Structure formats: C-alpha cells, structure tokens
C-alpha cells in the first residue's frame, strides 16, 4: 500500500540568541491512508514541532524548516507557496490541539468558526454552510447542535470544545488529521469519549490520524504504528504491539516503565505506564556529543557518550537508534 | 556587582534606549552647568526684540518679544522642568508606594478605603484638577510640585498594590511571617525591594508626564511667576506667533527632546529589567 504522507529528513530550527538551534532533526516517516500513526515522547522531545512543521503553522521567524521533504501524495508541501499551502491546511490535512480551552476564538460563535472553515474550502452558500456545520456538530455528538451552534466557546466544557475543534477539523473533509495531545487537558472519562469519537470518525471519513502524545495508554488504544522521539530525533519505530511487548530502545523501555533494572525499589515494582526516567530531556542547544539519551540511560557505555547512533532497521520492519539493539540485530 | 553589569549589558543592546540615555544626560548636563555658561539672566532685556535665531552669534537662538535671550530661557527652563519633574515624581512615589503597600499588604478594609480613594482620583480629570488646585493655591514652585504629585500618585498606588498582592503570597514572604518578622520589616525589607523594577520604570514615565503637565500649567499662566519655564516661554511667544513663530517653537523642541529622552530611557529600563518580556 502506498503512503499518503511521507516525511523525509525533516529538520526544524529556532533562532536563539546564539544562532539557530535545531529542535527537530532528520525526521523521516510514512503514513498509510486511513491508518493511525503515533508520535510519542516527553515534552520537549520535538513531537509537537514536528506536527506543526508538516502544516507549516509555526511562527516564522523564529522558526524555520531548514531541510527535508513533506510529500503529500507525492507533492512536496515545503515547496508550496503560502497561497497553495493554505489550500492544504484544513482541506488535505487538519489539526486539533492540546488546549481546547484556548484553541477557540472567544469572541466568535462556534458556528461562525466552523462555517468559516467550511466556506474556506468548499463552495457553499451561507445557509448551506450553516446546515453543514450543524451536521458536523451532530457527527461529533454535540447534543442540541441546532442551538449550540450560536453559543460562544466559554459556554462549553473542555470536552465539548474539543468536539467543536474536531468538527471544525472535519469541515474540509481532510485526508489526514493531526491530533496534538488531543486529550491531555481533559478529564479521564472525557478522554476516553474523545478517543472513541476519533476512532469512529476515522472509519467513517477514512482519514489517517497522526497522533501526538506523551501518553502510551492513548497510543495503545488507537494507534497502529508508533514513532518514539527523543531530543528532536526518532529513536525507535515499531508496530504498536511489538513496541509494547518488546521495546528495543532503552528510552522506550523507560517510557513503558518495563525495565526491571529501573524499578529496584519495591513500590515501583508494578508495571507502570508512566514516564519514569531519572532526569529531563536536555535543551536542544545543550545536547551531549554522543547519544542524546546517554546521560539518562541505565545501559549506556563509553561509545554512547562519544558517537551518535543512527536510526537503523533492526528486524520485522522496525527501526532503532541504539548501539545495543543494532549489535544484537547484527549478531542475530 | 555582576547584576549591575548584566543589567547594563541588556540595556545597552537597544539603540533607542542608548539614544534616550545620551539625550537625557545632555539635558541634565545643560540643567546643571548651563546656567553658569549663559551670561544673561533669562528675565533681563539684553538685545533688541524679535531677533531671529542665527542673526546674531552672541544670541544664537534669538530674542523674544521684549528682547530677552531665548537660549538663556531654555537653559534655565531645563533646570525648572527637571527639578519640578523629579520633585513631583519623588513625592508621588512616596505617597503612592505607601498607599499601595498598605492596601496590598493588609488587604481588607484598608485596601477597600484606599482603593476607593485612588479610583476617585482617577475619575477626576487629572489636568483639570491640577489647573483648579494651582489656581486656588496660587502658583509657586512648591504648589506646582505638590499638585502634580497629587494627581500622579494614584497610578503608583495601583501598581504597587498589584505587586504587593502577588508578592505577599510567595513562599519567602510567608516564611517571614512564620518566623515572626515585624510587618514593617516584611514590607520594606522583603517585599518592596522585589517590586522595585516596575517602580523604577514608572518613575521615568512619571517625570516625563510631570514635565508635560508643568509646561501646560505655565503655558496657561499658572507657572511660578518668578521662574522662566519652557511652558511660560511658549506662552510669551504665542503673542507674536504669526510673525516670530520661533519664540514658541524652540522651547517646545526642548520639551519634546526631554520627554522623548525620558520615555526612551523608561522603555529601555523596562526591557532591561524584565528580560522575560524582551522579545515582545
């Protein structure tokens, strides 16, 4: 099956006081139509910047996309002019964000904001667009959509607002939906509802979902393939089942909380699905010379601190950027 | 010491802030040593009236309707303007900081009462109030300083109150309360030093607006009758505006330069003291 979206060597930088700092480096991946690909990592790993680079919605300056290709059905989005790129946003690729409380314009009715998205991409009259907006609100299960459409965002709960965001994202009938931490700001029960909604809409609309999250529980629920990012680079790529059963990269192990060596104290003996790794992600302008994860890695050895491991295929179509897994792969 | 160096390095980065500083130092220099360098008393009639600037090298900025030296007037006026600006600001800071600190620290009824009073002062048209007060209390250097500070303290009080309200919730203040430090010490030694930055920034803006207010008052004839101020000069020049507009124009330019310099310095201070906002 051919890819609908293919990213090759994407590199994004931000200008800082001492020149440009690379925040996303040489990221490559491919998405199949109608499938769900997840990018996981801690905050500061570059996953959100990657997502926003695809749609080119980062503020430029200070950001700039320094290298790479983003091929949508073979067409490189990074080569498009602003005008052509606008027709991609919301029509080919839509995006929803982490903060439903602040992602809607407070002085515009939700209907106004959806209608605007519809009419930007489809030739509809004002009345038709409004009817379509009501239909979309229905599809995202907003009760009493016909009345709700004239409400301002502050009248809605966080979960309802995220539904509005999703309805708005669907307005242009996109082929791909980028969901950047779509449930992080929501209550647990609401999280489950939103995820279920996304899964159902995906099959109804047949769109691909690129899910950005730090929560492996969310990944397990709806993704088929997973990319693990650390300090701006992909460190592992695997089908979701393989990743959970047999993580290759020590960072992935840490994310899964599955490495017994990391849980020597009794209370942490249970299988957590939490991020529980000592230390924090290094600042992009303070990366160590070798593997960026080496300072936090329980398995690191001398070579890890001097040389950076490349992302290389291991087995079963998986990839990993760790000398350990590459060695075992080579010897096996 | 290095905090000062850091501050200076941040301040220096902005060209406009440096321009403001140079202008301000120039005006201050003129105010301090200028009156000794220009020979004439600004009120003395020294030359024929209506002498245009450049006509006579001895009086490079010309003379006014009575033949008084305009350069001398501007130089002496700089002293008046800066003095009134600084004194009024200092007084306004004294009142405003006290009121704001008490209201923000004790909250409750002192806060309610003091804030009602500040709101009242902010409802009354400021300049109009200044005009009425100076007119009733007779114009003099002292009354002008007091009146300008009377109309500018509410802004300080509101600022300091807001800072105090947020600072007093911080851990370091709470721990001072717990160890039983006296309230005066907490207010003056713990909290006040932490809200110095916005107060300093506001001060330069206050001096600028005090100078503008003073010039307006003296233009209306409500200046100290014994002092040659820039506003007074513009008022005098106004009589001959149709033929000799330079008489009003020159002191006005002096006001613009001084106020501009203070505003630029204020902005520079703001950027240098609040590094988190510098990218705005």
């Amino acid at each position: 099956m051919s890819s609908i979206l293919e990213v090759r060597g994407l590199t994004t930088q931000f200008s800082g006081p001492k020149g440009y700092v690379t925040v996303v480096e040489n990221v490559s991946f491919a998405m199949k139509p109608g499938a769900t690909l997840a990018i996981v990592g801690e905050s500061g790993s570059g996953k959100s910047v990657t997502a926003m680079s695809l749609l080119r919605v980062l503020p430029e300056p200070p950001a700039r996309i320094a290298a790479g290709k983003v091929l949508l059905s073979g067409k490189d989005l990074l080569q498009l002019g602003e005008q052509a790129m606008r027709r991609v946003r919301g029509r080919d690729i839509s995006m929803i964000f982490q903060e439903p409380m602040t992602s809607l314009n407070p002085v515009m009715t939700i209907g106004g904001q959806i209608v605007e998205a519809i009419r930007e991409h489809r030739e509809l009259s004002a009345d038709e667009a409004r009817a379509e907006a009501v239909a979309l609100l229905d599809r995202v299960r907003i009760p009493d959509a016909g009345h709700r459409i004239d409400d301002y965002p502050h009248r809605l709960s966080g979960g309802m607002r995220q539904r509005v965001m999703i309805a708005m994202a669907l307005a242009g009938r996109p082929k791909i939906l980028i969901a950047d931490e779509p449930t992080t700001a929501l209550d647990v029960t609401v999280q489950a509802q939103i995820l279920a909604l996304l899964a159902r809409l995906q099959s109804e609309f047949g769109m691909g979902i690129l899910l950005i999250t730090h929560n492996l529980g969310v990944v397990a629920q709806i993704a088929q393939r997973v990319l693990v990012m650390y300090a701006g680079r992909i460190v592992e790529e695997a089908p979701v089942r393989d990743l959970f059963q047999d993580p290759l990269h020590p960072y992935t192990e840490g994310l899964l909380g599955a490495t017994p060596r990391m849980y020597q104290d009794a209370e942490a003996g249970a299988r957590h699905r939490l991020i529980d790794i000592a230390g924090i992600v290094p600042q992009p302008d303070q990366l160590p010379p070798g593997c960026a994860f080496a300072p936090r890695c329980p398995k690191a050895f001398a070579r890890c601190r001097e040389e950076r491991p490349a992302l290389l295929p291991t087995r079963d179509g998986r990839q990993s950027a760790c000398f350990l897994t590459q060695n075992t792969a080579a010897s096996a | 010491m290095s905090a000062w160096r850091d501050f200076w390095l941040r301040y220096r980065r902005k060209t406009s802030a440096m321009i403001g500083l140079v202008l301000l130092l120039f005006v201050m220099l003129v105010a301090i040593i200028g009156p000794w360098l220009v020979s004439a008393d600004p009120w003395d009639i020294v030359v024929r009236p209506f002498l245009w600037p450049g006509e006579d090298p001895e009086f490079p900025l010309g003379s006014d309707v009575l033949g008084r030296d305009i350069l001398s007037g501007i130089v002496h006026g700089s002293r008046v303007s800066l003095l009134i600006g600084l004194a009024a600001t200092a007084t306004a800071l004294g009142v405003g900081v006290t009121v704001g600190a008490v209201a923000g620290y004790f909250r409750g009824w002192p806060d309610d009462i003091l804030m009602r009073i500040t709101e009242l002062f902010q409802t009354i048209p400021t300049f109009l109030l200044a005009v009425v007060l100076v007119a009733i209390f007779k114009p003099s250097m002292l009354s002008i300083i007091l009146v300008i500070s009377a109309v500018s303290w509410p802004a300080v009080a509101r600022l300091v109150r807001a800072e105090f309200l947020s600072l007093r919730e911080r851990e370091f203040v709470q721990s001072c309360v717990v160890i039983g430090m006296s309230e005066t010490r907490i207010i003056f030694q713990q909290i006040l030093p932490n809200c110095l930055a916005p107060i300093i920034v506001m001060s330069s803006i206050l001096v600028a607006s005090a100078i503008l207010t003073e010039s307006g008052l003296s233009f209306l004839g409500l200046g100290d009758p014994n002092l040659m101020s820039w506003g007074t000069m513009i008022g005098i020049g106004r009589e001959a505006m149709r033929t000799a507009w330079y008489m009003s124009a020159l002191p006005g330019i002096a006001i613009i330069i001084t106020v501009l310099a203070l505003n630029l310095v204020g902005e520079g201070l703001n950027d240098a003291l609040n590094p988190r906002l510098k990218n705005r």
Partner: protein
Amino acid sequence: MQGATQGAGRNRIVRFLVRRSAQAGLTLLAIAVLNFVIVHLAPGDAIDVLAGEFGGADAQYLDKLRRSYGLDQPIYVQLFQYLFNVVQLNLGFSFRNNMPVFDLIMTRLPATLLLMVASMLLSFTAGLLLGVFSARRVNTFADDAVSVLALLCYATPLFWFGLMAIVLFTVKLNLLPGNGMYTIGSNLGWFAATLDVARHLVLPACSLALFHMAVYTRLMRASMLEVYGLDYIRTARAKGLSQRRIAFRHVLPNAILPMVTMLGLQVGSLLGGAVLVETVFGWPGLGRLAFDAILQRDHNLLIGILLLGSALVVIANLITDLLYAWLDPRIEVA
C-alpha cells in the same frame, strides 16, 4: 422561549445599569465632597477662594455666595448645604458671567463635546489603523517608523503642536482656520455652516487627538502581537485562512478590547487637554471657559467645571462598560 431569554437579558441590562448608576452617583457625591475639602483647605476664607481677588469687592456677589454656602454655619452644615445644592444642580453663580454656573457650563458643553468626540474618533481610528499596520509588519522599517512617530506624538505638548499647526496651516499656507468655531459674521445655509464648523474643527481636533493616537497605536500594536501568539490564532492558521482574514476576523476583534477600556480612561485626559487646545484655538467650549475663569479668578466656576467634567468621565466609563460587554461575549452583564 427565545422571547423569554431576550426579556431576561433586557432585565439583566436594566439591573446592571441601575447598579452602575447608583455607584456613579456615589462617586460624584464623593468628588463633590473632595471639591468642598479643596475649597476649605485653601489659604484664607472660603469666600476669598471662591470669589477670588477680582470680584471680591462686590458685596452683592459675596452675599450670594455666603448664602449659597451658608458660611456662617458649622462646617458639616456647610458641607450638607453644598451637597444639597449640587444634587439640585445648583453650582452657584458666576458673577463675572452674570449667569448660574450650571447654565453657563451647559451653554459651553456642546462645543467641547463636539471637539472631544471628533478627537476621540480620530485618535481611536488612526491608532487602530497604525497599530494594525505596525503589528502586521512587526520589526520592519515601517514598524519602526510608526514607533518613532508614536514616541514623538507622546512627547509633544499638544498646545505646542496646536500653535505650530496654526503657523503652518493658517498663517503660512492659509488652508484652514485657526481660531474660533465658525466664521464670524457669515450668514450661511445649514450645509455651508456645517462645513464651516468642520473646517474650524480640523486643527483643534487633530491637536487634541495627537497624544492618544500615540497611546492607541502602541496599545493596538502590543495587543495585536499578543493575540497573534495565542492558541486560537494557530487554529485559524491550521484551518487554512488567509493572513488578511486572520488579522481582521480573529486578531482584531480580540485585540480591540483593551482599546475600548482605554476609551473610557481617555475622556478625563481629553477634558484636561481641551483646556489647552481650546485656549490655543479660541474654541468656545468648557476648556476655554476654564481658562477665562483662571484669568478672572472665578474659582467657583472652575470648581463647577471640575465637577461636571468628573460627571462626564463617570458617564463615559458607564458607556464603555456597556460597549465592552457587547463586544466581549465572555462578560455576562450581571
């Protein structure tokens, strides 16, 4: 159902207005007390203060003042007498103008309102446009140029600007009138007369607008830039909207809110500026009246103008609050 909610909404607004008007009334009463205190703090007998040195000799005037202030009474009685008079809009008598102060103020109010409204519209519109222009070109030469312009307007005394405008546009170029509100002795039809007033209005309104144009420009620029960084602007970009639509439909309506707050605050400072501008341009309004009162030492009139000026500010704040509530759906008028 719809009608019921609308009715409830109207009720809420009425309640809001009633409550705010009561607050405003209290504020004005407090300002009247403050006026009373000012008069009594001044050096010398209150009668000297009110009558000034000029009209002080006239026994009839002094009698009138003495009666209206009840100066032989204890101070608290005087205060109540004064407040009672104020409530009845009795602000005393202006001997110099041979007219009750309140009536005198009312005859001059329309000219000042015209000047103030004109310069408010001018400064708001110009500041809005310049601010939007600047924010959309942030950190370019054009942006810097606007910043320099705003800083200069900030630093320029408006009466000086008025004088220079008269020199240039009236004396040198002979383009616009620089004195008064209409051409004296002309007998014009209503259209020509309106045009005549408009021509007289240009220079004073511009002079008065200058400072606040700078205020609005800087405020609007900062506000636009702040809104540009907010999440919902990223949403708008992700929807594929054009830069223009984002700027005008999403950024501007949000960025304008602090500007509206400023409108209410501007009124007080405009009244002060009106004293200077009306003096420079001989504009027959409250400001000019205040200047004449200074010259004539008619302090009773000055205090009346101050009180009425404060009332204008209070009313303006009320209108601003309503306007804000209308523009920002998050404010539920309650």
